[in-house]
C-alpha cells in the first residue's frame, strides 16, 4: 500500500464523516464535495482515468451543486433548534456499525482468494478512452440507449415534480 492511498482514503473518509456529522447543512454539502473528490482521486489512482474525470464532472460539478441548490431553496441551512438527528439514532448507528463489521470481516477473511494477492503489482490495464468509446458504441450500446432514456425521463420528471403549481389548482 502506497502513502498516496492512505492520504486519499483518509481524505475521503474524513469528508464523508463531516458530511454526515456536521450540524449546518451547507457545511455538510461542502464536506460531501471533499468526499467525492477523494473517491475521484482513488479512481485516478486505480488507473481508471475516464471514470475519475466522469466522477469529478458529474458528482462535484452536478450532484453537489444540485444539493446546494436544494438546501438553499428549502431554507435547510437554518439549523433546527432541538436536534439534527432522528428520534432513535442509536438503531441506525448500530445497524451501520454491524454492516461495516460484517463487510470488513468478509473482506479480511477472503484476502488470500482475492486477485492480486501475490504481492506483485499488477500491470496497468491497456485501456484507452477510445476503447471505452468503442465498447459503449459496440457491445454496450443497448444499456447506453436505456440510460439515455432514463436520463431524459428523470430530467422531465424532476422538472414536473418541482414545477410551480398554478394558483387555481389549489
Amino acid at each position, binding site marked *: 500500500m502506497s502513502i498516496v492511498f492512505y492520504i486519499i482514503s483518509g481524505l*475521503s473518509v474524513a469528508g464523508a464523516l463531516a458530511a454526515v456529522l456536521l450540524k449546518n447543512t451547507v457545511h455538510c454539502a461542502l464536506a460531501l464535495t471533499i468526499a467525492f473528490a477523494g473517491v475521484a482521486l482513488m479512481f485516478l489512482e486505480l488507473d481508471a482515468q475516464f471514470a475519475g474525470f466522469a*466522477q469529478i464532472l458529474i458528482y462535484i460539478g452536478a450532484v453537489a451543486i444540485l444539493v446546494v441548490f436544494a438546501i438553499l431553496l428549502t431554507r435547510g441551512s437554518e439549523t433546527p433548534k432541538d436536534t439534527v438527528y432522528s428520534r432513535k439514532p442509536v438503531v441506525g448507528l448500530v445497524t451501520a456499525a454491524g454492516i461495516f463489521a460484517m463487510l470488513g470481516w468478509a473482506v479480511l477473511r477472503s484476502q488470500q482468494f482475492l486477485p492480486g494477492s501475490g504481492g506483485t503489482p499488477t500491470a496497468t490495464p491497456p485501456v484507452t478512452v477510445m476503447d471505452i468509446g468503442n465498447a459503449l458504441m459496440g457491445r454496450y450500446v443497448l444499456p447506453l440507449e436505456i440510460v439515455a432514456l432514463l436520463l431524459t425521463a428523470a430530467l422531465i420528471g424532476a422538472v414536473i415534480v418541482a414545477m410551480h403549481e398554478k394558483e387555481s389548482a389549489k
Partner: protein
Amino acid sequence: MNPLTGYLLVAALLFAIGLAGALTRRNAILVLIGIELMLNAANLNLIAFWRYGPHPEALTGMMFAIFSIAVAAAEAAVGLGLVISIHRHAHTTDLDAMNRMKG
C-alpha cells in the same frame, strides 16, 4: 496488505458512514447525501475489482461504474426535486414531519 483489500475496506467504511447518515439524520437532503455516499462506495468497489480482476481489457467493471454514475445522477435529480416539492407543500424538510402521502 493486498491493495485490493485496502480499497474494499475503504469502500465498506464509506458505505457504513453513508448508511449511518441516511438512517440517523432527520433532514431529507442529508438522507440523500448519505445515499450518494453509499452509491460512491459501490462504484469504488466496481472500479477496484475491474483494476485487479483477471480481465481488465474487457471493461466490464468500468462499464458498470459508468452506468451506475449516470443512474445516481438521475436519482439525485428526482430525489431533490421531490424534496423541493414537499417543502413547497408542507414547508419542512424534516422527515419526522412527513407523515402523510396526501398533498
